[in-house]
């Protein structure tokens, strides 16, 4: 049992944090919003140079061949800055799927290319217009096409950095890759979205804490009032108890059984619930400022709304957990259970 992040994983988190802190501040997104851009080429290039797009790619496809736990720490940092670019969907979900099907694909040769994915669970495809390749689903099989080979209809999102599209396409104009592991793609996306949720949540709390120390009413900082403290303490409790669920889910994806799928769904629900609770508390603590375009909290709220409902709604994930609760052994010896663990105990 070793349920802690390794030094290497902590280092990844720090690299990502430093990189994002320099290049992805609210001023950066605000400039992008002004010109209607969803993608910052310079930032994305820096992030690719630092290897963040290669973490989950197998070594055979030029990647680092690392595991979900390694990527989850990066996703959390991406959430903390509300990173506009589709790092998670591209490098965390689509690229490894493409690599599993077509390791030689040209889109993988360029670490700064983005790849979009049309998962059957999602009605819309994020960032399809700027992608070097789009993964498409038909009857369990995967196809790949470029944006030029398909018809994209924009479906604007409340989150200015999530450019959504419906995709019409014809298999004759796409390349067939064969049967793909859509479940694995879903599990990865769910866990990384949950990790982003943790980052979004912590940022919303941190922004509110900073504000509550400065803003004065009745002659004192509002942060000295209990009602304000309790909003933020409650949000922090939600974060603290979502964090280990996300960590365990990321560590267990590889097991690919009912237990690990339930854990992934659990992570998806509570990671984003923490983000929602934190965003709401943060807006409340900021008062009318929190309701203004000028204050940064709303972007964290909007990203939270988007991530909550995509890659499986809360209802979808709750049903996956119900399958585990009502169909598999429950109880205190089952925390780290997997398909073979009860047998292992008998042999102990």
């Amino acid at each position: 049992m070793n349920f802690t992040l390794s030094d290497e994983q902590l280092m990844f988190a720090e690299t990502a944090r430093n990189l994002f802190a320099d290049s992805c501040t609210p001023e950066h997104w605000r400039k992008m919003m002004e010109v209607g851009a969803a993608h910052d080429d310079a930032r994305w290039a820096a992030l690719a140079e630092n290897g963040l797009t290669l973490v989950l790619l197998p070594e055979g496809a030029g990647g680092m061949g690392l595991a979900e736990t390694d990527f989850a720490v990066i996703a959390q940092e991406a959430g903390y800055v509300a990173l506009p670019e589709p790092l998670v969907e591209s490098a965390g979900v689509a690229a490894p799927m493409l690599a599993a099907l077509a390791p030689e694909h040209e889109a993988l040769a360029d670490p700064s290319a983005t790849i979009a994915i049309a998962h059957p669970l999602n009605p819309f495809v994020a960032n399809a217009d700027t992608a070097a390749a789009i993964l498409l689903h038909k009857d369990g099989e995967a196809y790949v096409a470029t944006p030029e080979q398909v018809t994209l209809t924009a479906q604007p999102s409340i989150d200015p950095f999530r450019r959504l599209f419906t995709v019409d396409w014809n298999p004759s104009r796409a390349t067939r890759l064969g049967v793909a592991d859509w479940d694995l793609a879903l599990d990865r996306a769910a866990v990384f979205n949950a990790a982003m949720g943790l980052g979004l949540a912590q940022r919303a709390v941190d922004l509110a804490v900073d504000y509550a120390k400065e803003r004065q009413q009745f002659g004192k900082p509002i942060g000295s009032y209990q009602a304000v403290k309790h909003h933020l303490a409650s949000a922090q409790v939600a974060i603290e108890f979502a964090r280990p669920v996300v960590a365990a889910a990321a560590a267990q994806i590889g097991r690919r059984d009912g237990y690990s799928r339930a854990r992934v769904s659990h992570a998806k629900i509570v990671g984003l619930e923490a983000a929602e609770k934190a965003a709401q508390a943060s807006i409340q603590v900021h008062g009318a400022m929190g309701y203004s375009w000028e204050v940064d909290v709303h972007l964290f709220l909007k990203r939270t709304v988007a991530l909550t409902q995509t890659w499986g709604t809360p209802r979808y994930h709750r049903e996956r957990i119900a399958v585990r609760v009502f169909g598999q052994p429950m109880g205190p010896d089952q925390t780290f259970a997997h398909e073979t663990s009860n047998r292992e105990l008998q042999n102990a």
Partner: protein
Amino acid sequence: MDLTYTPEQQAFRAGVREWLAVHVPEAPLEHFDASRAGFEAHRDWERTLKSGNWGMVTWPGEFGGRGLDLIQWLIFEEEYYRAGAPGRVNQNGIFLLGPTLIEFGSEAQKERFLPPMAAGEEIWAQAWSEPQAGSDLAGVRATAVLDGQDYVLNGHKIWSSRAVFADWAFGLFRTPGTERHKGLSLVFFPLDAPGVTVNAIKKINGHVGFAEIFLEDVRVPAFNRLGDEGQGWHICMATAGFERGLMLRSPARYQVAAAKLAELWSTHKETADPALEADVVRAYMNADAYALNIYQTALRLMAGAKIGPEASTNKIFWSELDIHLTRTALAILGPLAELTQQAPAADPVDWIDDHIFALAGPIYAGSNEIQRNIIAERMLGLPR
């Protein structure tokens, strides 16, 4: 990250399981707060545990423990709850005072107090609260005055769980003339010492679960002071860390309850509100999240960290999950919810009593309002 138990941990689990299967009493014992007989039956169970050397597994061997690490402790607790073993009548001693004694006590004190604690021969109560000092614990007024080799204790303690039948209490006392956090000392006194009057107070379920204690010139040897004079507040906060954090509520308790809730749902789902399924699933999620969090905390502590203000997040989380869980059970039971265990139609699990007990969770061990203040000030850095 490796989320599997080692073969040694698995073997340990199997050993605990085997021992409990042989020793756990078949019929449930009467509750330890319900009567003297129930209390003594639980004391006997503590002796049985001791006979297998399972009295307090994390303590060093010389004091009646096994010197196990926190992960082994969690495994032990998991098997304990899984087996439906009796509640620990001595939890104040073994889970709260014990670890504090190990940290702050002299060798002589450890030798004197720990082995009988592990054996169930001396059952402890916590005498901190007073009528005027609840949340504001630093306002205690009971006094301890050194007179030669003895302390003379005076004052009025209240809400001491188990004190009605217990043998000893650890109390928080003030050196006269000192104020607030200064000058407080932690002193042990026998509950049958001359000058001690214990009056039972009934809880809302009718059990004599706690007591008020009047102390009139009670003499105890200075040996009974834990730590230095004036160090009481510091020591009590360490105990409170155990209480809110890890030891008082191991996750297994809620995992068993969540499993029973899932069973209850399966039995009643034809008649219950379908929307309740989501609450049943949530109870599982909460218990699971709590377990994962505690495993991570245990591993951090084993790597040398100290429990900090995150103990307050634990306390809020377990107390709220417990209320949610038992409230869901009552909702599933519908008209059966109000039945006592004497009712022939009652569910075998006493959900209503569990719920009533759960309602105390946000009050004891420091109310949740106080825990939220601690989180806001010490974790988030908000001004006082």
